[in-house]
Structures are given as structure tokens and as C-alpha cells.
């Protein structure tokens, strides 16, 4: 047999052409798996919840669902206590044991809550145009969605005796009441 006809073994993994003179540590592999936020067992679509922070603090509000971002979608309903469709983190909320039977609601995602970013510099212009009114204006789409949701949730609330006045009232602590000793 000639040299070109002989059979040779070739390594599957060749040894590297270069390796450092000293062993250097390799960083650990990032094995992080992004999981959806685990919702507290006490919070369920339809449960009444007390908001603890923000301009609506103390208000009792109905949870509609958990959004894909992990936040709770919540509504007063707007007609009852002025809390609109809003996203809220479950850590800023006290869950009560009261639950409202909600009918089937239209699908809502995180997209309608995304705010428009600040105007960024255009390549051609020198300065960023901040002179215009960049304050937040509620979109007509949101107003329409709020009306639609209220039309479904408010009748469900009115079915339960005194629940509407309960949602209109704010949560307060009086003398002798300690939240860690209270049952909600």
C-alpha cells in the first residue's frame, strides 16, 4: 500500500495550538433560568387587595390577573374608587380574603402600559427637543378599555352586599390595631 492509501486515525478534538503558561480560572457558567414571578396563594383573579404605596395607597381594589411581566393587573373599578387599570407589584399589596366572582375579561397585556420614552437626539439635530409637552396623556384606547372592564366588573361587585361601599372606603389603622396581628 502507498502512503495515501493507508488508514490513519485522526483525533476528533485536536489539542489547542495555544494555551496559557499558567492555569487561569474560568468564570462559572450562568445557569440562570428566568421564571415567572410566583404569585402569593392568597392573591387570585377577583380577590380584593389593599394598595400600600403610591397615590392610591389605602384603597381597596380588585385584582384582575397576573400579567406576563409578573405584576398584578388591578382596577378600582374606576367608577367606584378612581383607581384605573393599573399594574401593581404584589409586594406592595395586602391581600384580603374577600373575592369577587369575575366574568370572562378581555385579554390585556403589558403593552398598553408601556410609556413612550423621552425623545432621543436625532443625528442631524444638535439639541434634544424637550420644549414640547411630554407629560403623560391617557390614550383613548385606555379609556375605552377601562369602560369595557368596568362594565363587567362593577355588576359583579354590586352583587355582593356592601362590597361597593367597602371598595370606596380606604384602609386605615386605628388605636390598638396592629397589622401583624390582624387577619385580612
Amino acid at each position, binding site marked *: 500500500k502507498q502512503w495515501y492509501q493507508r488508514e490513519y486515525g485522526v483525533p476528533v478534538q485536536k489539542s489547542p495550538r495555544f494555551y496559557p503558561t499558567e492555569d487561569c480560572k474560568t468564570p462559572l457558567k450562568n445557569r440562570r433560568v428566568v421564571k415567572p414571578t410566583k404569585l402569593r396563594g392568597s392573591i387570585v383573579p377577583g380577590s380584593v387587595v389593599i394598595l400600600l404605596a403610591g397615590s392610591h395607597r389605602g384603597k381597596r381594589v380588585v385584582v384582575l390577573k397576573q400579567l406576563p411581566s409578573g405584576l398584578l393587573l388591578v382596577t378600582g373599578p374606576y367608577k367606584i374608587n378612581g383607581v384605573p387599570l393599573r399594574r401593581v407589584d404584589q409586594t406592595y399589596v395586602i391581600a384580603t380574603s374577600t373575592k369577587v366572582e369575575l366574568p370572562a375579561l378581555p385579554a390585556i397585556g403589558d403593552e398598553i402600559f408601556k410609556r413612550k420614552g423621552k425623545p432621543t437626539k436625532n443625528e442631524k439635530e444638535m439639541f434634544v427637543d424637550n420644549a414640547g409637552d411630554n407629560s403623560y396623556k391617557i390614550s383613548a384606547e385606555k379609556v375605552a378599555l377601562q369602560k369595557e372592564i368596568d362594565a363587567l366588573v362593577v355588576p359583579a361587585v354590586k352583587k355582593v352586599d356592601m362590597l361597593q361601599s367597602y371598595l370606596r372606603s380606604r384602609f386605615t389603622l386605628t388605636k390598638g390595631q396592629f397589622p401583624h*396581628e390582624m387577619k385580612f
Partner: protein
Amino acid sequence: MLYKRYIEIGRVCFIRLGDDIGKYGVIVDLVDQKHLLVDGPDGIGRKVVRLNQVALTDIKINIPRGCKTKTVRTAMAKEGVEAKLAATSLVKKFAAKNAKAQLGDFARFKNRVAKTASNRKIRSTVRKLKKSS
């Protein structure tokens, strides 16, 4: 002032503080100036309790000092201690206080609304009576 409820063997006492709160037992022996040996139904068994943990009731049964748990329990069943206890105001008040603590936020709201409504009625009636007199 005449004391009517004595710390004595056979006195039924209601435990108002500590781990065994809400339970009751019968005084079986005295340990020292501040401790009692108490024996009761399954939930509590035979145990030393402090005097301040305990509230004495009107009920007293006949048992010898330091008798066995079995004896205590048969004596309690014979006298109908549990039924008598449930009728005492002490136990009733404790049960009411417990029930109030278990109320949820909505129930507390409803109670508050009812209370303000009734208070308003009472005040207006009193005012009317004052005016007429």
C-alpha cells in the same frame, strides 16, 4: 371583700395566657406559691402552670390530691365540667374576643358601618328625649 373562688384541689381553671391559651384544667396539686399542677382533657394533659396564666372559675369538682389523669377525667365527665364552663361568662367573652380577631377586613368594615349606624340612632334618640324632657 369575700373571696368566693379559692385555689384548691378540684378547682377548674381556665388558661388565659401562654401556649395553652383557651384550654381548661383542674387543679390537682400545688407546686409552690406561684405554680399549680393542672390536669385536663386531651389537649392539655397534666402540666404545671403559673398562677398568672390562669383564671379561676366557679366550678369545683371532688378529686383527691395528686390523683391520676384517668380519675380527673372521669370526675370531669361526671360533673359535666365542659358544659358548665361553656355557660360561664369568662369562656363566652374569650370566645367572642377570639371570633373578633379572626374577622377579615371586609367583616371588620361591615361591623364598623353597623356600629356607626346604631350609634347614630342611639345619639339621636337620646337627643330627642333630652329635648322633650
